[in-house]
């Protein structure tokens, strides 16, 4: 049986680009959430956690409305790129980004909050700005944990189904990601293909999860 590997390559591409986006925007969100001077942190925290609590189809519906051709965002995208965003492989990136960012923020925030405040205080006394302290002191001190959060975000990006199918659709060789391909294989009764794809996606997720665990700093015994 010939296996079509396009969904795998598309998923990897989508996950890679989404992870870059998640790392950049997620880090900024983490900065805002860990900076005591920022007002409205609780509201921001609630907004970041929100996607974790909603069913993916509901989130997909929100995105359909928010990014549709009639919406200002959709119009802006079409004006910049010359084509609508919905039902393209780029829409799958948006879905993966929404799917993985809350998890990235949760994973990256804890080690940053656990950095001994003594370093931040020392840097403040030296005159360093909060942004500089974040980049030069806090981030390098949690480098490994942050990389672990990136790995988790990557694994998570691979796995979205509900939002992807609602805003990117299921167009073979265009927008069909691995998780969507599994769904289609099962629906068509192609058990062998479904098993192969499931094993592949599981192996990648497990490898990313193992890498993240290895990257987490070891805790002292006792």
């Amino acid at each position, binding site marked *: 049986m010939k296996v079509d590997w396009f969904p795998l390559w598309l998923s990897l591409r989508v996950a890679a680009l989404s992870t870059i986006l998640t790392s950049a925007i997620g880090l900024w969100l983490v900065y805002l959430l860990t900076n005591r001077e920022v007002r409205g942190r609780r509201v921001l925290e609630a907004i970041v956690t929100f996607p974790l609590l909603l069913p993916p189809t509901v989130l997909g519906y929100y995105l359909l409305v928010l990014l549709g051709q009639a919406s200002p965002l959709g119009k802006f995208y079409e004006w910049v790129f010359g084509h609508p965003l919905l039902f393209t492989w780029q829409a799958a990136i948006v879905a993966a980004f929404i799917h993985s960012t809350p998890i990235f923020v949760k994973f990256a925030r804890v080690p940053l909050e656990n950095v001994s405040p003594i370093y931040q205080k*020392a*840097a*403040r006394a*030296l*005159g*360093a700005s909060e942004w500089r302290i974040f980049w030069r002191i806090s981030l390098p001190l949690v480098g490994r944990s942050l990389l672990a959060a990136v790995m988790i975000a990557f694994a998570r990006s691979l796995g979205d189904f509900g939002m992807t199918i609602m805003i990117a659709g299921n167009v073979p060789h265009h927008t069909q990601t691995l998780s969507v391909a599994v769904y289609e294989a099962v629906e068509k009764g192609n058990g062998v293909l479904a098993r192969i794809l499931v094993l592949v996606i599981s192996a990648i997720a497990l490898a990313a999860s193992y890498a993240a665990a290895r990257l987490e700093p070891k805790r002292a015994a006792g």
Partner: protein
Amino acid sequence: MITARVKKQLSPGPNGSDVKLEIDLQTRQGITALYGAAGSGKTMVLEAIAGFLTPDEGRILLEDSILFDAASGVNLPPQRRRCGWIPQECSLFPHMTLQENLAFAVTCLTSPRLPRLERHRRVKETLQRFGLKDAAGKRPHEVPREVRQRCSFARAVICMPRVVLLDEPAQRLDPPLKTEFYQLLRQIQKDFRIPVLLATRDPEVCFELAEDLLVLHEGRVLQRGIPRAVFDQPATVEVARILGTFNLLPATITALDPVLKTSRLRVSDFDLMGPYFPGRLRGDNVTLCIRPDELTAMPREGKPGPNQLAAQLVRFTERLSIVRLEFTGNITVELARAEFERYRHNKDWLIHFPPQYLRAL
């Protein structure tokens, strides 16, 4: 010079007790020590000056600029206070080398922002001055504690702060390194002429370094003065307890003679002659205060003489050159080691209270 008059009520501590800061202090040029037991509020005072703790009311001035003023809502962020802050734990950034730590500090200088070459020159010069040249490329965990401490100082003063705030600086140093640390701090003071405010619970640090001493207890300054004067004449029983170096005995004044400048005191069941205590009246209950090194002790032979008390030795602790003897009645005497050696096995002693050293609090 720092002038601080602030109040801060903190949430109750783990034992449910109120933690309150009610400070009114002024420091001078030179080294000022904030002396107090653990939990007396020393660190909070330093943090309030550095800008890490916001008082509820009051005002903090550094030279002629306002760092904090509750009434007008001024509260400069730590970044703009220009206070060199050296906490108890090592605060050198662990992911940077010692040189990078200094370079980080110099690049934080924004008024005026130094040109790249000048920054480089200043880092090199500071490494040289603090004897850090050989360890410049090493990270803090790769160098000994005394080098880390030198680097902490170097990093604090490289930006020319207006005051250096030091929290328990010699607490974790071994005795030989303490001497080195004292020299270093004196040298910094001499070279940079930056006022230093240091928090400590070590009387030795106060004597070695401080030109001015503030005794702190439960968030309040109880006494201030030059260290020798404070340790010689504590203002209250509380201060004497905090200084921890005194015998404190409850007594009643039974006679006062302003002509002969003498007094008589009743301490439990024996009488003592003392100096005249101005402002005291006959019948006043006071606390007699005398340092262990001001008392003398000798083996008991016959009846106690004037100002002598018979007591039994409970235990002794040997130090480098002195022996600390603890007697019945909670009286402690310090004797020279050689003197003690002659009567090491003696149990019954006479303790002599020289009248000129008796203080009534």
